């Protein structure tokens, strides 16, 4: 019971963390992308469709990356180059992706209601580690995407906090005018962050279809993109914090399924609302966005 709950926590946390790490990169560069829900959906859809028709999980993952990048390219074109309002653009991108995936799914797979299943992405037990009681199955018997996501936490922390590239990235998010004056190329850096983020978000979507549901249903992301947005805030724009927040929210989702099965007096909706309510409390309690990049959400235009 405990083992299943903890394993499920890691499974639930992975796509959220993956998308949140991508969003962190984007936000460090000064852009807020609330269209991650859309990129995630596109990734989920592309992964399933390509894996189903080609029979190859690897191709499915490549397709998911391409789909996430494509969605973010639309977003980047508007908000980075044309300096359009990021919030409204992000919302529109999400609506667009929800519609496109819905329409193309029905067209490709019909309305028969038959589920189109793909083989789940293979689990890779990590040798003797996977045989440790409790910890083994919970932490060391997952698919490659899970390992990749959790390795990305220290890697991204290092890149953002310790490298020259990270410094440039953060300069674009804090003082784009100054960064531009130093010749850092704000537009190029924001594009790069959005492209990497699109790839990660697409993979997060692929996790939903290839590792979790093994099929696609409309709106399969079900708000996870917005949970990822919460994770960045609750994790205080720090990849370690993001990992902790993702695991917390993953646990809330895992618990909610357990509770629904048990039929306890605690309403399961409480757990579903937790990420969002906690984000509000954190924002209110910590005095707004003190930890956020100061130019977050402001379009940058060269004078």
């Amino acid at each position, binding site marked *: 019971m405990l083992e299943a709950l903890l394993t499920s926590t890691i499974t639930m946390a992975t796509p959220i963390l993956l998308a949140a790490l991508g969003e962190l990169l984007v936000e460090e560069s000064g852009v807020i992308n609330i269209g991650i829900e859309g990129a995630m959906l596109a990734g989920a859809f592309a992964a399933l469709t390509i894996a189903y028709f080609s029979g190859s999980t690897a191709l499915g993952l490549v397709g998911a990356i391409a789909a996430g990048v494509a969605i973010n390219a639309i977003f980047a074109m508007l908000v980075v180059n044309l300096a359009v309002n990021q919030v409204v653009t992000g919302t529109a991108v999400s609506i667009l992706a929800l*519609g496109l995936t*819905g329409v193309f799914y029905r067209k490709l797979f019909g309305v028969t209601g038959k589920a189109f299943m793909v083989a789940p992405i293979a689990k890779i037990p990590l040798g003797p580690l996977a045989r440790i009681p409790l910890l083994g199955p919970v932490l060391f018997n997952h698919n490659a995407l899970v390992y990749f996501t959790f390795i990305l936490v220290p890697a991204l922390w290092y890149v953002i906090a310790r490298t020259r590239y990270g410094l440039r990235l953060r300069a674009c998010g804090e003082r784009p005018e100054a960064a531009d004056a130093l010749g850092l190329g704000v537009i190029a850096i924001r594009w790069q962050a959005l492209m990497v983020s699109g790839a990660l978000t697409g993979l997060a979507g692929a996790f939903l279809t290839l590792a979790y549901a093994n099929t696609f249903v409309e709106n399969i992301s079900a708000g996870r993109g917005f949970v990822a947005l919460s994770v960045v805030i609750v994790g205080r724009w720090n990849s370690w914090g993001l990992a902790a927040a993702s695991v917390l929210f993953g646990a809330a989702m895992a618990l909610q399924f357990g509770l629904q099965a048990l039929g306890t007096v605690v309403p399961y909706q409480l757990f579903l609302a937790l990420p*969002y309510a906690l984000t509000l409390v954190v924002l209110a309690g910590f005095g707004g966005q003190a930890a956020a990049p100061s130019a977050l959400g402001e379009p940058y235009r060269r004078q």
Partner: protein
Amino acid sequence: MLSTIAKPFAALALAAALISIVLAALGASPLGVFAALGEGAFGNWYACADTIVKSTPLVFTGLAVALAFSGALWNIGADGQLTIGAIAAGAIGPHLGNFPHAIAIAIILAAGALGGAVWGAVAGWLRARRDVNEVISTIMLNFVAVQALSWVVHGPLMEPSRAYPTSSPIARAAQIEFYFAPSRINLGMILAVALAAACYLLLFRTGAGFELRAMGRNRRAATFFGIRIPALTLWVMALSGALAGLGGAVQISAISHRLYEKLSPGWGFEAIAVALVARLNPLGVIPAAILFGALDNGSQAMQRTQGISPELVQVIQGLVILIILAFDTPAWSGLREQIFGASGDAAAVPPVAEMPDA
């Protein structure tokens, strides 16, 4: 040069062109699909009436969004505000049986407006006093509202028979009657039109409306102008929430008569498209809402005859928003200036100091 009126139409035309490409990719005939949409939305008297009914909640949420956006308050939370308004209306509705018809309706609508206002005010307060970006707070409040609705219809407000997760029906006295039977066009649309006129007057004919627009143009300049930004933020978000909440109450009182899960199919998000097509003008919200209501309504006929799933409407909405944004961008104005020389279009926005006195 694109005039203010021509822009939305140009955006719609470009959206139609892009949709045609999507439809061609699906192997469908664009003309056939557009014809089916139009036929389903306006083909006969019943279709027209249903289009009006489907547009009604969009007028309320569209006004809510247009008002907030006018002050550069990015209220993405109309869906949550509508949901909380509906919960308030659905909770009080069954207990209004002993009131006269007019009083009961006034109470249920007031409950909805109050519920939405509270939800909007939370985001307004967080912005005004705790410097929390309203985009994030309203998104979070949307999800909390959805879970609150799910909880009340499975829990405290579940109807006694407990056969389905719905609330008890509201009292007859609190039901807006169908004034244009057999269609379901009701007093709600008339109220919505009146509110659109009221919002127009508020925004363009009052001092408060001027202050709001000044804040939208330039917060810093508005501060120097003596406008109390925090108080204005709180009030506008509350008012915006009240409009959306009223939309929820009208839906409960006139159409569904009870609460159920997933009450809103996304009226709060469609409202963003509505408000942008209306160019944030409250009077423009009415035709814009009818346009999107017509798309919703026509999409069923489109699915029946053309086999295209109704999600195509979301594709249209997303494209329309993106295209309007792209048309409106300052970068474009700059580009136009480079190509055509300085235009009246770019200079159409007067600096705050030159605006007529409030």
